[in-house]
């Protein structure tokens, strides 16, 4: 076999890279464009403002579903944010380098990889069955809070670690206790980074289906308390596909989800740019 010159290899390889890159991009473009074009036909005010009425043709809109989604995510964040940020503060500011700390880190990393449906089984066994919360927003929120915890810990810890050491030393030199340093100096400085992590978690919560499918029931009624059942937008999309032939409404729901993710990404990009400017600008 004749030796191929490095120049030719380079040409072939770069052509291959452009080729794969463009194929990958085209596939992904098709997905978004398809949902955009097909979904926009059914996306109107009536869809957003009326309640689903069920039936095989998927009558009605998604208003109560949007309400349940907000309710669930609000409750989830109330549970998971204090725990996650607290854990992050401990890991970045207090944790000694010992076996216990390594165990905590390992546990958090493994938890991050556990599949959504396994969290669902756990939530079903503990919250739905053993604690008698039944299929409810509370069961869903507790399950989802467990699922989001590792991501939230990681992003918050990164935000705290990126606060310069001089901040800590200055506070301690002024006679502040460790907790005063954390509360008055580090948390305010790291806040944009922490908020970015929280918004990212909201984005993941919006997309989760499997763990909620087995803990939240799927009722379309407007939730009246944490013990009401409910369904999120992602779950509603799934129910529309499985139980009805309203593919148009499913695509419109998909479009609402995509728009939500776009908004969330824009917000996090804006915030993290500001955060970086603040941390490197010396202000």
């Amino acid at each position, binding site marked *: 076999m004749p030796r191929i010159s490095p120049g030719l290899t380079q040409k072939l390889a770069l052509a291959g890279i452009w080729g794969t890159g463009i194929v990958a991009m085209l596939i992904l*473009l098709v997905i978004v464009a398809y949902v955009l074009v097909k979904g926009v036909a059914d996306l109107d005010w009536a869809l957003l403002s009326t309640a689903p009425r069920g039936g095989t043709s998927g009558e009605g809109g998604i208003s109560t579903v949007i309400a349940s989604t907000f309710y669930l995510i609000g409750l989830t964040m109330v549970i998971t944010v204090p725990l996650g940020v607290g854990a992050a503060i401990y890991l970045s500011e207090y944790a000694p380098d010992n076996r216990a700390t390594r165990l905590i880190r390992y546990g*958090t990393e493994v938890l991050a990889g556990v599949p959504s449906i396994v969290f669902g089984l756990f939530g079903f066994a503990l919250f739905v069955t053993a604690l008698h919360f039944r299929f409810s927003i509370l069961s869903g929120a507790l399950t989802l809070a467990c699922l989001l915890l590792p991501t939230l810990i990681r992003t918050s810890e990164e935000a705290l670690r990126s606060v310069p050491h001089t901040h800590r030393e200055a506070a301690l030199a002024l006679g502040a206790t460790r907790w005063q340093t954390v509360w008055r100096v580090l948390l305010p400085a790291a806040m944009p980074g922490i908020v970015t992590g929280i918004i990212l978690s909201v984005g993941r919560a919006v997309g989760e289906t499997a763990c909620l499918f087995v803990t939240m029931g799927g009722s379309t009624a407007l939730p009246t308390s944490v013990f009401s059942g409910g369904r999120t937008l992602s779950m509603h999309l799934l129910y529309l*596909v499985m139980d009805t032939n309203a593919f148009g409404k499913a695509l419109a729901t998909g479009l609402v989800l995509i728009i939500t993710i776009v908004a969330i990404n824009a917000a996090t990009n804006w915030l993290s740019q500001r955060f970086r400017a603040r941390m490197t600008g010396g202000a």
Partner: protein
Amino acid sequence: MRKRYLIDRGSRGVLLVCATVSVAVLLAIAVFIFKESLSAFGEIGLLDFLLGTKWDPNPVGDASPSYGILVMIVGTVLVTMGALIIAIPLGLGCAVLLADVAPHRFRQLLRPAVELLVGIPSVVYGLVGLVLIVPLIRQIGGPGLSLAAGIIVLAAMIMPTIVSISEDSIKAVPRAYREGALALGATRWQAIWRVVLPAARSGIAASIVLGMGRAVGEAMAMVMVVGMAKAMPNSPLDPARPMAPSIALETNYASGTHLSALFAIGVVLFLFIVILNSVAIVVFKRGARA
């Protein structure tokens, strides 16, 4: 004066409790899933459960129910492998393109697109697969809802994750590596292939493990496109029934041994992921030290 020291002490304890919650949750998941699965393992027997080819928890008439999950294990392995075979080359090509080859403008345009695609819910991927890919496959042959449809949907779903994390790790390779290779007379491609990619390998491996984890655990997108048939698939055009979507579909109405068997599938899935992640963590630690 004393009060603030008490607060300082107390806060440390509270924060430590917060930090142990995630370990507690992990342990609780393990305990609950194992406990609920015990009666199934006892009744069915480990080998019959793992190697049985018939899953029929609610048989018609007075036949006794069967709980074999080999079809599901094969289904999970096939969709995951298939998706990785498509997503790894395309995703890595795309990552190198964005990180090293394409002009800056191009990258600025595509980076947000990749970020968006990482965030799009899996049910949306499933829906597009159902209305777009499934009819195409039906034209080739078979029922359309198939292993092939599942593979394509999963590949599209995990590709953005692979692109995003690999690109970050390729970008993180110090400029001096690239410049050193070029100064020694390497072509641009030789610098990428022999120097930059090996230096970024732990990040690239992390992206693949993460994508693999997502593929193994994906339930709802698979429910929509993979067909959920109970027979062993003989070709990519046949329907399949992976583990995660089987749990998702049946948990809400199952009871007794059936419910316990679903938890047992959860145990198999959980162990698989824990082993996968532990191997990954060890490999990356080694990679990071090297």
